[in-house]
């Protein structure tokens, strides 16, 4: 794993683990969503990621899944919207993640704001869980109607 990414995970997701978990607590308590991650990419490549599940984030980077993740690219390539995406293209690694963490898919909410793109990942461990009837609440959780009221499509 690149040293910079390793530092990013250590200095934020791991160091502030307790604070992040507290913020995400209502997701688990009321909606059964156990995993949340936020990332942002600016057009100059500046990158931030934080998650309430550092072990899984560590796995994502130590397995080099970020190298093939099509969503970790230039902001201009996307429109705002929702998607249900697999953890990776590599089925073996998806299987491993499922086995280790019970995670193989994510709901991704993507928003273009100015010169950057922000993504919010949600995961429920129960594979039968639906996100449709929670999209509105999840949008509120990421403050869509506040900070993202001016997002671009």
């Amino acid at each position: 794993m690149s040293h910079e990414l390793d530092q990013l995970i250590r200095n934020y997701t791991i160091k502030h683990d307790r604070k992040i978990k507290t913020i995400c607590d209502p997701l688990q308590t009321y909606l059964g969503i156990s995993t949340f991650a936020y990332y942002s990419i600016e057009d100059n490549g500046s990158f931030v990621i934080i998650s309430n599940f550092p072990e899984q984030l560590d796995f994502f980077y130590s397995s080099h899944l970020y190298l093939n993740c099509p969503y970790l690219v230039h902001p201009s390539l996307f429109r705002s919207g929702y998607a249900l995406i697999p953890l990776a293209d590599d089925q073996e690694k998806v299987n491993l993640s499922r086995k280790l963490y019970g995670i193989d898919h994510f709901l991704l909410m993507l928003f273009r704001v100015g010169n950057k793109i922000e993504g919010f990942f949600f995961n429920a461990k129960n594979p039968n869980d639906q996100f449709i009837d929670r999209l509105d609440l999840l949008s509120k959780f990421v403050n869509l109607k506040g900070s993202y009221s001016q997002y671009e499509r």
Partner: protein
Amino acid sequence: MSVDLCDLVNRYSIKYDHKIRSICEPLEVHLGIPNFSYYSIEEDGRFVILSNFPEQVEFFCANEMYHSCPYLAHPSLFRSGAALIPVTYDPMQVQQSRKQYGIDHLMLILNCTANKVEGFMFTTKDLNVQTCQNFIPKFDLLNKFGGYFKIEAQELINRALSERYNIKSVRGKAFTAHDPNLILSRFDKTTVSFLRQTSLLSWQEQRCLELYRQGHSAQSTAAVLGLSQRTVEHYLDHIKEKLNCRSKRELLTKG
């Protein structure tokens, strides 16, 4: 059979079938969603429903399925959002709909304001609990389509609303009966708790902001909520502060 509702279907969805189908064409062509219905209910019960699949709506009305449909109720009972719901809450009729039209579920997007609820219903033949995940990437576009449909069908919607169709008189007490376990119920305990815990605003502040965004003045907001005008102004100042807004105008986009 309710003469009123079948009449509504005949006079609008069937009579203007060509126009409605043409508005809905992009749904099928670009998103593969052949069936769409729109409904609106005002707080006094005025009701309109338009569909590009009149046979199915006729089936719904002729079998009086509206009696058991919990979403055909007073606007104040709901919150905005999306849900996968069965076409009817009677399992026998679900089977019949599946057999006759290949449809047993629909995707409902509700858009609520204080005095009106609008429902946008989308369905395909294979829509069910498993396949509804395929709607997620389209969700943003479906919302946009809802706005487009309303603009294009505005004249029809207004005309139908100005007539005598009233869902309150058809459903009686069921019109105001609330089921807190219903998806998109405003009183669903889980939702209320989640929103309380994740919102920067108190419950009362949220209601003030909602009414303010609907164009109510401080005075009329106070009247609706049974508060004094001064209290409402105090709430709005607090909201401005919490949401880091410089003016009340900015409140219309933040929150």
